[in-house]
């Protein structure tokens, strides 16, 4: 019987994490040996948290060693719980932190998803400040960024982060693992305030259905209402081929994302900067998503130092019809938002279309025209959406009608500048 378990990170370069070892004992109660760079300032509280944590987990006799590098309480709790579980002890109850009440953000099927910031699931140091960069969504990743031996530790940490960390209004997303491991991941995140699940390597609609069904079971069991949205990631030829069916697999699907690293490997091509090898797949996913009525989301841009390249890449994606891009570094977020934002010419045209439409409506005219051109209904709809987005990102004043009808050339920029996208 294993009676010792450990979890977390140790060593000189580690920060905002800790290493916890639990040695189960026959008697003697819980003793804690602490080494911490904040010992003088938080030592008592760390020891107390460990002792109370052990009690909640049902550990009555153990020698606990903690090497702390300034870990926050949600991390210490996660490392302790994982170490206890790894020791072979069956926990009495999971060590749950109270839900953070400040981050009461809710999700919506059609909310902005221009940027999604990936955070490695087992690395706590990035968590608490991620939301300060105001991405539309934050992805706590249980899949590729987590080593196979650390999946259990990452689940526990991600669960605690979902409960305790304020993401400042970003949509809380989790990328689960593939297959049955991914289904098990759901137990750790669904009852704890996740907004959206990214399902990797989706090739068949049935994969989406299975995830959706399991989510409903968990929600029902925990007596929670609310919706957990789904975003399948297409990363293979077969997935791309079936993009539309995957997008329609469940009403919970709100977007289809494409992942190109695996896709290019799957079709036997090299990934190039120009991206001709993946053009078909991107167009296919885009059309599949639009046909299914969900958001088409583009892949990540992986060179974090190349801001010019990023901007071009987002412009190209926007030009194709994508509405979102993955981010692997917080500095990419603003660039992505700015590149997705409507430009001056677009806003100018859209506001004139909306005005023409409203005037035509007021006059009871069935046909909208701008200058000598007839305007179709879908064009009006698109212009309305664009105007709304321009207001949201601060590129257009909410009072633009007054300012424009007063023939003020400076109607734009009148809005309160908000680079954060208004959320």
């Amino acid at each position, binding site marked *: 019987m294993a009676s010792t378990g450990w979890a977390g990170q140790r060593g000189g370069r580690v920060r905002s994490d800790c290493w916890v070892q639990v040695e189960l004992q026959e008697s003697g109660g819980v003793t804690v040996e602490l080494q911490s*760079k904040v010992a003088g300032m*938080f030592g008592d509280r760390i020891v107390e948290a460990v002792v109370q944590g052990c009690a909640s987990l049902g550990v009555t006799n153990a020698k606990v060693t903690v090497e702390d590098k300034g870990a926050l309480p949600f991390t210490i709790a996660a490392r302790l719980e994982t170490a206890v579980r790894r020791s072979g002890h069956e926990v009495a109850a999971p060590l749950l932190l109270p839900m953070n009440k400040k981050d009461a953000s809710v999700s919506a099927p059609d909310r902005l998803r221009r940027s999604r910031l990936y955070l490695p699931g087992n690395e706590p140091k990035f968590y608490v400040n991620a939301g300060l960069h105001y991405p539309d969504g934050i992805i706590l990743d249980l899949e590729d960024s987590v080593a196979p031996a650390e999946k259990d530790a990452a689940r526990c940490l991600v669960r605690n982060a979902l409960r305790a960390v304020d993401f400042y209004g970003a949509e809380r997303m989790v990328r689960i693992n593939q297959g049955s491991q991914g289904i098990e991941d759901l137990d750790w995140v669904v009852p704890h305030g996740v907004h959206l699940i990214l399902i990797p390597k989706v090739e068949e609609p049935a994969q989406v259905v299975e995830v959706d069904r399991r989510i409903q079971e968990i929600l029902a069991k925990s007596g929670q209402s609310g919706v957990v949205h789904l975003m399948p990631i297409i990363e293979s030829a077969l997935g791309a081929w079936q993009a539309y069916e995957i997008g329609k697999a469940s009403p919970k699907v709100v977007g289809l994302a494409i992942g190109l690293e695996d896709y290019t490997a799957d079709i036997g091509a090299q990934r190039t900067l120009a991206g001709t090898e993946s053009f078909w797949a991107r167009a296919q996913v885009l059309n599949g998503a639009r046909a299914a009525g969900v958001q088409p989301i583009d892949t990540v841009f992986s060179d974090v130092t190349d801001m010019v390249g990023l901007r071009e890449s987002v412009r190209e994606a926007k030009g194709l019809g994508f509405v979102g891009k993955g981010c692997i570094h917080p*500095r990419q977020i603003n660039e992505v938002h700015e590149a997705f934002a409507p430009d001056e010419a677009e806003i100018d045209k859209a506001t004139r279309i909306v005005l023409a439409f409203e005037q035509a409506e007021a006059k009871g005219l069935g046909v909208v025209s701008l200058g000598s051109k007839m305007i179709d209904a879908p064009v009006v709809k698109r212009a309305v959406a664009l105007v709304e987005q321009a207001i949201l990102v601060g590129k257009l004043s909410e009072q633009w009608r007054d300012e424009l009808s007063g023939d003020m050339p400076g109607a734009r920029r009148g809005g309160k500048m908000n680079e954060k996208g208004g959320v």
Partner: protein
Amino acid sequence: MAKLVKNAAGRMVPVAINENAATPYAGVGKYVPTGRKVGTLIRSAADYPSDGDKRTETIKQALINAGLKDGMTISTHHHLRNGDYVANAVFAAAAELGVKDLRWFPSASFPCHAGMIEHMENGVIHHIEGSMNGPLGDYCTAGKMRGMAVLRSHGGRYQAVQDGEVHIDIAVIAAPTADPFGNATGDRGPTACGLLGFALADSEYADHVIAVTDNLVPFPCVPWQIQGNNVDQVVVMDSIGDASKIISGTTQITKSPDRLLIAELTARFCDEAGIVQNGFSFQAGAGGTALSFALFLRDMMRERKIKARFVRGGSTQYLVDMLEEGLTDYILDGQTFDLEGVRSMRENSGHVNTSPFTSYNWHGKGNFASMLDAVVLGATEVDVNFNANVVTHSDGRLLHGIGGWQNCLASKCTILPIPSFRDRIPVVVDSVTTLCGPGELVDVIVTERGIAINPLRRDLLERLQGSSLPIRPIGEIKAEVEDICGGAAAKPDLSDEVVAAIKWVDGTVIDCVRQIR
């Protein structure tokens, strides 16, 4: 145990430092000393070699010639930063001579000076008056130094020399290039460091001045930063320092997204506060966040074709680029942090070397610091009343010198861009561990969680009303950070023993550092 009195900031401070009476801090601008500055000994040119050759073979011989004896004060300077060999060589020679109880009066100390601990252990050095970092800081806060340390700002060091608070017996100036007469410069030579401004007061006021160089040139050394007419002896040694360590370790742009966010918010604040306009001035030191701030500012200036009248260094390659690109008329430089700064100072007449006298001195007829439109400074802690700490860590250990920090608080807008917490330790606190800067002089705190404007600056609050920047009361930021960190940090366990006095820019005692139990 030292007798303590409560000063105007409410801090208990010693009434005497190493047996000399000390004046408690009375408030910003409240202490007005009178009388005359100290005079120096009358010299006669006849006592010096008429051929101008003042060379002496060794530092040891030079110290003997200078009349070194027990209890004297020796000053050195930190132009060579962590690559300095000269201070160590001076005290090694003093130890060989069997001298005891010296006071070391450096303009700053670095980890390379850890060997001074041995000199304190064996009695050669009695105590240090200057910055103390790393091992020296730990030695001091452990209460092991015999005398009380005194920490002063760069301007305060000049003040202490001028009003006689500190009398320097022997000043030893590391000179990257010098002639036999003693004219010296820092802007050239194999160990070039830029400028020698921190040694200016010492060269003028010390009883005896020794220039030490590894690059002797025939008279005249032109241009000179230190005048040979103030120098008694010139010593040539193989190397005065490790050139590779002269460059500051903190001149890399930060890659941390959170620090970049802080730098960007700082630049945007300056913009919205109306600071960034033609003819403005600013000072931002080395350190990742300050450098990144300068870059964000540069981009802003480029885009809007705005030109500064002057920027104050510590200069780096980034400030030099701005000068060469025409984004500023001048760099008024207090110290060069990299070799590009050294080159620019040598080659560009717009890159001007300054000293603590021009920039910071309290006993001057004004100084440059108060003319700056904005300065960007670091801090280890700030409290809810905007009081700031720059010398100790929250655990009570000394870890930084004051440098020009206190002097810069006089600027028109003092901004502290700092993370809201470090390693679970909140930076925004109820009360700072050590008070170095009075809150009334700190205008703005920029953290990644929001910008707090000092309520005393109603003009700034009004100007920023309706801004999209995250302007928040400082108490709100503090509460949020404590929520994240699991409460405020426990205060360090300190004894009543005072180990260091912290001087305000006018020479009064603003706070003190206590021994850690």
